[in-house]
């Protein structure tokens, strides 16, 4: 848990947002995050984020599913309890393809979604601090973190690159368990501590 100091600004147009990100980065400021109501292609690249490894993880989960299915069925039908189905071989691989395929898909999908939720800290009753409630609706919100080396000069930087409604905000960066209809009590205490 930690409350940090941020400078935030709103953008309404991608045409302004993209150059703004570039300029902010060029000026040496660290962009904490940009919150958008919909995925903007190229934004992750512009912000210099590395590619997600979720694909690779999905592949690994899928392979695990394949191995589980083949391994388990082989053990069950050829070693543990051999059953004679119409004189067919115990190791009837072609007949196992459907279940193997289904388990591959199941493991990959469930594993990827769980990994996605873990990485993005998404779960029921998870409460996070938001810079601007409109960032899930109709505006792009850029948040710059204020460190010891930088100061409120960022306000003017954000304004100069086309951001509107520029302000300083103290926000909790971690998640906690809570409800959205109640103000986070955790936050108020820690905010006082920062001041």
């Amino acid at each position, binding site marked *: 848990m930690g409350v940090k100091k941020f400078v935030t600004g709103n953008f309404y147009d*991608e045409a302004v947002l993209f150059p703004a990100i570039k300029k902010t980065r060029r000026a040496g400021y660290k962009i904490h995050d940009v*919150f*958008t109501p919909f995925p903007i292609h190229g934004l992750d690249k512009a912000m210099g984020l590395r590619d*997600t490894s979720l694909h690779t993880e999905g592949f690994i989960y899928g392979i695990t599913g394949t191995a589980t299915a083949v391994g388990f069925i082989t053990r069950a039908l050829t070693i*543990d309890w051999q059953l004679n189905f119409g004189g067919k071989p115990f190791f009837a691989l072609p007949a196992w393809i459907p279940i193997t395929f289904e*388990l591959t898909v199941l493991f990959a999908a469930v594993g990827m979604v769980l990994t996605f939720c873990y990485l993005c800290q998404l*779960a029921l009753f998870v409460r996070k601090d938001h810079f601007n409630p409109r960032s899930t609706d109709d505006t792009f919100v850029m948040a710059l973190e204020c460190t010891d080396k930088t100061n409120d000069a960022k306000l003017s930087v954000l304004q*100069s690159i086309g951001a509107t409604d520029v302000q300083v905000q103290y926000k909790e960066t971690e998640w906690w368990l809570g409800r959205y209809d109640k103000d986070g009590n955790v936050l108020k205490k820690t905010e006082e501590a920062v001041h």
Partner: protein
Amino acid sequence: MGIGHAGTLISAILLLFRQGWRTGVNRAAEAMTIFAVMCAGQFPIWHMGRVWNAFFVLPYPNTRGPLWVNFNSPLLWDVFAISTYFTVSLLFWYSGLLPDLATLRDRAKKKWRKAFYGVAAFGWTGSTKHWQRHEALSLVLAGLSTPLVLSVHTIVSFDFATSIVPGWHTTIFPPYFVAGAIFSGFAMVQTLLLVTRKVLGLQDYITVEHIEVMNKVIVLTGSIVGIAYLTELFMAWYSAVGYENFAFFENRLNLNSPYGWSYWIMMGCNVLSPQIFWSSKMRRNLTLTFFMSILINIGMWFKRFVIIVTSVYRDYLPSSWSTYYTPTIWEVGFYMGTFGLFFTCYFLFSKFFPVIAIAEIKHILKKNGENYKVKMDVIESEKVEKFAHDQEHDH
């Protein structure tokens, strides 16, 4: 089960084919998929007779040996296929819903709405990194769902096709079932969305163009199903097997046989009537589309009726032919019950959840990033001195 296919088809396959029009209808179609699979998945359980033993189909270490389930049986494949399909569809649907639920949460005025959507949105913020992962997840889930859709209905058809009952024992069943599933699924999407768009005033999002495109899919898949019916007949004749011939030409095609009428209802509803959609005027006629969608749903119900009843009500022994199948009150009850379950779920969904994929619509409607990447080159090649100078100038 068939109805439960259009949703994933629209979401997954059309996502892979980058069909922009899917965004208007995909969320509702996915929801329909999930509710339909919930209904469909019940029937095997009811048909087991001893419902309380339904968990016997799961390969768990048991006190009977352990005696494992038969992994070589299409019925067990079905268990895995349907449960996987349900799980993956649910994950795909809900992961897509998260950003939209977050939008509702942040726009909510009432306390209970904030609480409800706050819990349901999993704490989604719209962070760029999260969107990047979300995009990757959607794409891979779409890639996984596409073969899954095909496999599930293929496996459903294996329940019939791997048997030796005349009329079921055909190799054309897998593609024919998949086409039929898409066909009936799109018809059901039309039925639901024509009403939904009217009631919720979504005419600007689910446009006549959407309806028309879906009608094109209906005429395509309806024709594929028609070809499959004819192929079946041809193969029955060509095989020169007396039992196959009897099943197709006596039990089905012959209008004077006890169930001949059901075959011709099926043919009329599924093959002949959708041909009207070759005309673009008809495709854009909403009343006709609604009427046709109901007709197709009836036709596709009769498809199953024909396959099951006409193949088994007269078996190899003519002495046992006297049975004229009539559903019992319990069978009708189960069927009506699924209507209740399906529509209850769908109404709750359309009342409390976003029927339109909000984030995806915004993504389509807003200009995309391509225009700006061009401008980015200028900034990329810009001299640092010049940039600094500009900054100074701005101040």
